[in-house]
């Protein structure tokens, strides 16, 4: 589904992403983990066209999408949520999602119809699906943090993506919010047959839902595979212990 091969990106001589290759199969739930500054967000930005790679390719369903403009990549079927919440803060929750539907259905150059009368049912249904029913008239920027993250997920889902990239979907959430979000993600991924690629600092979550894990360290993939393999990889343990995060990996079986 999503094939990344030999991706490199340097900033002023610093190799943020160095020869990264990663394949995510259709309907797979994959996670990229690594210490802060390992290059996770840069990798996402390279996939979604926010940054152009120095070398390497990104393929979606066999099609080369390397370096295409973000809006094109979005239209090709990659949805994304950002690490720092990225919504339309001054529009209402309803308007946020409705705008995404309008664009997805290529109605943006319609100068004449009344936008507020369009895609009302689709928007209402999505509101229920992401658990924001009842908040439709709220101005998005005034929502609580967890709800803003839910809305952002809704924005990504409105374009009906095949692949969903989530950059730390539970960052800054309380334990109960985290729990709900993960349940929501799992349910939506199953219902919509999504391919999921996410980054996460909470190792418990990663090992709970990921079917495949890639570990990024200093811009390089140091381990890749099923959770059990990654957990027992000596280099991964060394890197994580070095960062005081070893407890998240659990005990060696």
């Amino acid at each position, binding site marked *: 589904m999503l094939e990344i091969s030999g991706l490199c990106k340097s900033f002023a001589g610093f190799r943020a992403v160095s020869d990264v290759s990663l394949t995510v199969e259709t309907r797979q739930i994959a996670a990229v983990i690594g210490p802060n500054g390992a290059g996770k967000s840069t990798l996402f930005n390279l996939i979604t066209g926010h940054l152009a790679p120095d070398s390497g390719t990104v393929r979606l369903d066999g099609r080369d999408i390397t370096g295409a403009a973000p809006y094109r990549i979005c239209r090709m079927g990659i949805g994304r949520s950002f690490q720092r919440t990225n919504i339309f803060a001054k529009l209402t929750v309803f308007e946020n999602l409705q705008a995404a539907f309008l664009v997805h259905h290529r109605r943006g150059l319609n*100068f*004449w119809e009344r936008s507020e009368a369009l895609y009302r049912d689709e928007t209402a249904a999505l509101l229920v699906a992401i658990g924001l029913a009842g908040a439709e008239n709220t101005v998005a920027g005034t929502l609580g943090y967890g709800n803003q993250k839910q809305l952002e997920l809704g924005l990504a889902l409105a*374009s009906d993506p095949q692949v969903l990239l989530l950059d730390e979907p539970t960052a800054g959430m309380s334990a109960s919010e985290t729990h709900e979000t993960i349940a929501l993600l799992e349910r939506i991924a199953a219902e919509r047959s999504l391919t999921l690629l996410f980054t996460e600092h909470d190792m418990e979550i990663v090992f709970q839902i990921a079917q495949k894990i890639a570990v990024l360290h200093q811009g390089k993939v140091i381990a890749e595979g099923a959770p059990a393999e990654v957990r027992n990889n000596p280099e991964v343990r060394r890197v994580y212990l070095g960062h005081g995060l070893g407890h998240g990996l659990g005990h060696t079986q």
Partner: protein
Amino acid sequence: MTATTATTTLLRPALSRRVPWTLIVVLVLATVPWLGSRYNVFLAEQIIIDALFAVSLNLLLGTTGLVSFGHVAYFGVGAYVCGILMKTYGVPFIIAFPAAGLGAAFFALVSGYFCVRLIKLYFAMLTLAFSQIVWAICYKWNAVTGGDQGLPEIPYPHLGWMSVIPGLADLRIGDRFYLLSLVLIGVSLAVLHRVVRSPFGRVLTTIRDNPERAAFIGINVRAYELAAFVVAGGFAGFAGALYGIFSRGVFADYVFWSKSAEVMIMTILGGMGFFWGPPVGAAALVWLNQEITDYTQYWSFVLGSILLLLLFAFPGGIVGGIVSLWTRLRNVRRA
């Protein structure tokens, strides 16, 4: 089953009520030639032309979040195209007026192509640069624009046909032109209102709010910004065409950058978050200008002080202030 239907209906906010404000305002203003003096007609005409100019700017400023410091360029192109066609070539108004809008829109397409490639302050500076280029051309190209002498004595359109309409037969040509302008501006505002409320308008508001996110719901941000620039430029051109005829001549002064600042002040003063903000701002500024210059020569000083006060007291402009006052009163009554 019934329960599900009930929930989904509840989830959709009610559609807003539609009040034909444009029509109401046009009808009220149409009475000015009968109820007011010649001077009132003069003021009203200046206000409605500035209102259209300011609303066209607000499509960029308030709706798309693009700060253009050079919007007067398109106003000026419209004024010159219409003026030159009517005076030099004797083209009738019915062709010269649409040509002014198209000419301004075309120039907006060319200059906008470059401007939308830059962001924020750089965008603003480039729009200013283009408008100063237009000004320089108008000021120097004697053969076509009349240079620093301008194009005086632009003829009025033929409005003899209005005599057929009962009640209009004994109106002066100036009053008749006012009514024609009122209808054209009313239609333009109705169209712009519709555009702002359309899916296109919604896309523009997402760009204003968050361009990065807008791109990642699949919006080609630059292309939409350019489209907004062209539409705004075209309507500014219509306003310019009417202004040239109204003031009986087109001069390079009209294209000078200070005019861009003036229309921006109108927009912010009235409230750029509201469709009717800029027209209210235009009315306030034109009226204040007349009132204050009657009493003092320090018009700019007084205007500056008033603006300062308003911006701190009502950051949403005059209309924003009225709306928040209204909401507060309603809440007090409910409590």
